[in-house]
């Protein structure tokens, strides 16, 4: 297992490096005009612009820039932010923002796991009856209606009927977080409900469940000890990734409610030519995604001993 872990992590390192390189090259496609603020583009002469770009090393050959970038990654030096927060180290910029996103993300995840799985169980218990159809209707609506529309509806209902604040404010964190959290949870509740139901129904049709019924096992025990546990195996694969990526926040929800979180950071950094921030974020998200998938595999293995990550050889 240790050998497998090391091998897999080394492979992932290569993947992250490839991704970082591609993003680095993609970002160099941006016209250099974006390097300056709108004011500067108007006022500075071409020579002044060239001087500034030269001083920042932006006009060096691509190969040289790339080598310098690799050097920085190896030294774990992520540089400073240029225009998101002037001159601050990128790590500090992220550090100041991620707590907001992560707190909301974690609350929303706990909420949607409980609600989604419960809804899925209820749907399975009432298969082809009213509650099942209600759940299916919810899933269809959430999947089909554009999130911008559903967020707007949540906003109108939340602020008109329940009097909740329509914008996030640091002075009233508790109340003003309610609507963003509901918006983030809408789709994940549907996701968990849909798949819990699907896997549980699949499981219910298996022969060992019939045997358990015949030998007189209580329905409740069958549901909890067999069906739910087995249905949860494919679901748990997904959980570590989403847990880790709560750090990235939600782009639309955070923009919609003006939450000062991580969501809009990536697009802001691109439009403001803050390359260090873009590269750090991409490396961070890619690594977290890869670690998440690995942890998911481990979690699946723990829950279901039949699943083996390491090929023992000869067992097939």
């Amino acid at each position, binding site marked *: 297992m240790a050998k497998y872990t090391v091998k897999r992590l080394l492979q992932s390192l290569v993947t992250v490096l490839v991704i970082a390189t591609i993003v680095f090259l993609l970002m160099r496609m*941006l016209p250099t005009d974006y390097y300056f603020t709108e004011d500067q583009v108007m006022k500075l002469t071409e020579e002044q612009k060239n001087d500034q770009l030269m001083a920042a090393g932006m006009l060096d050959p691509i190969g040289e820039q790339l080598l310098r970038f690799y050097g920085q990654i190896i030294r774990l030096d992520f540089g400073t932010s240029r225009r998101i927060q002037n001159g601050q180290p990128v790590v500090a910029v992220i550090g100041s923002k991620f707590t907001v996103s992560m707190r909301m993300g974690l609350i929303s995840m706990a909420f949607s796991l409980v609600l989604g799985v419960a809804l899925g169980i209820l749907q399975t218990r009432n298969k082809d009856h009213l509650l099942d159809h209600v759940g299916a209707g919810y899933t*269809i609506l959430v999947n089909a*209606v554009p999130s911008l529309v559903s967020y707007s509806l949540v906003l109108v209902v939340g602020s008109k009927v329940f009097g909740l604040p329509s914008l996030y404010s640091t002075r009233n964190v508790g109340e003003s977080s309610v609507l963003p959290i509901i918006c983030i949870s809408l789709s994940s509740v549907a996701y968990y409900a849909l798949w819990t139901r699907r896997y549980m129904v699949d499981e219910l049709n298996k022969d060992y469940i019939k045997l358990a019924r015949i030998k007189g096992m209580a329905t409740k025990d069958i549901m909890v000890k067999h069906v739910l546990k087995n249905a949860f195996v494919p679901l748990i694969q997904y959980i570590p990734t989403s847990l880790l990526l709560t750090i990235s926040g939600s782009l639309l929800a955070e923009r919609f409610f003006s939450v000062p979180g991580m969501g809009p950071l990536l697009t802001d950094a691109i*439009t403001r030519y803050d390359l260090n921030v873009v590269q750090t974020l991409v490396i961070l998200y890619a690594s977290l995604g890869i670690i998440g998938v690995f942890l998911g595999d481990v979690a699946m293995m723990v829950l279901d001993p039949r699943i083996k990550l390491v090929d023992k050889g000869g067992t097939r």
Partner: protein
Amino acid sequence: MSKSQDELFRVVEYSAEAAERIGYSDYSYWKSVFQNFLKKKSAVIMTCIFFGLVIFSFVALMIGKYDYQHLMSESSLAFTAPNSEYWFGTDNLGRDYWCQVWYAAQVSIKLALIVAAGECILGVTIGCIWGYVRSLDRILTEVYNVINNIPMIIYMTLIALVVGQSFRNMAVSMICIGWLTMARNVRNLVLMYRDREYNLASRCLGTPVWRVLVKNIFPYLISVVILRLALSIPQTIALESTLSYLGLGLDINTPSLGILLRNARNYFLNYPYLLLFPAVIVSMITVTFYLVGNAFSDAADPRNHV
């Protein structure tokens, strides 16, 4: 005394008509698809609603009292509630909302259909090659992983900044990213079916590759491709609205759902009709398409045919 064979049996003349009557089965793939589809009353009704909406969006623009091209800002008329003159009221600049909403609905449908068609053509072609040609599998899988692992918002932002914002750029960039999922689904299916015995037999008999793909494998792909298309249309509309809302989508002069809601974001708490009309129309389009696509994909699966 039993009769001899010559007495019992009689040799008939060959008749092409009679031969056809025995060997002919009137099974036709598309006929069964439509028969199965028409059995689902709810899906048929949904289809009617969808086409009704699309046709009405043209009618609505014609019968509206204002033409989108000649809209004037008139601050004294701002936030007029819906009335007989302005059927959907007016926006914050006093412009007629009726023609904006229907025009936006048309833009969204047009974009979604173009992207879906492009995704389908590109995705199915690449998916077939990816699944069928063994030596390309590794390379294409790596390409897929790399493209898929970079956050999509980076591509969209870069395209918006480097190439510029327009309807065409938006459609092309969405196709360039959307084919990935389609190609992957198709590839997995092609891998499943390519080495079945009947394909092996076809290959031994010297059937050209394109014919194996088109005749033997393609029918199995249809229902998955349709399902993917049905999902892609609501997704495209949602993505367009999100990107336009963030200022990375269509340019500000093309009204689309995202732009309308972006303009209305600060006002619709006080003037809910600014949200209600676009929200209801676009949701109807996406929900009907989602349901119709699901029903049609069930009907297109040959395993559900008798």
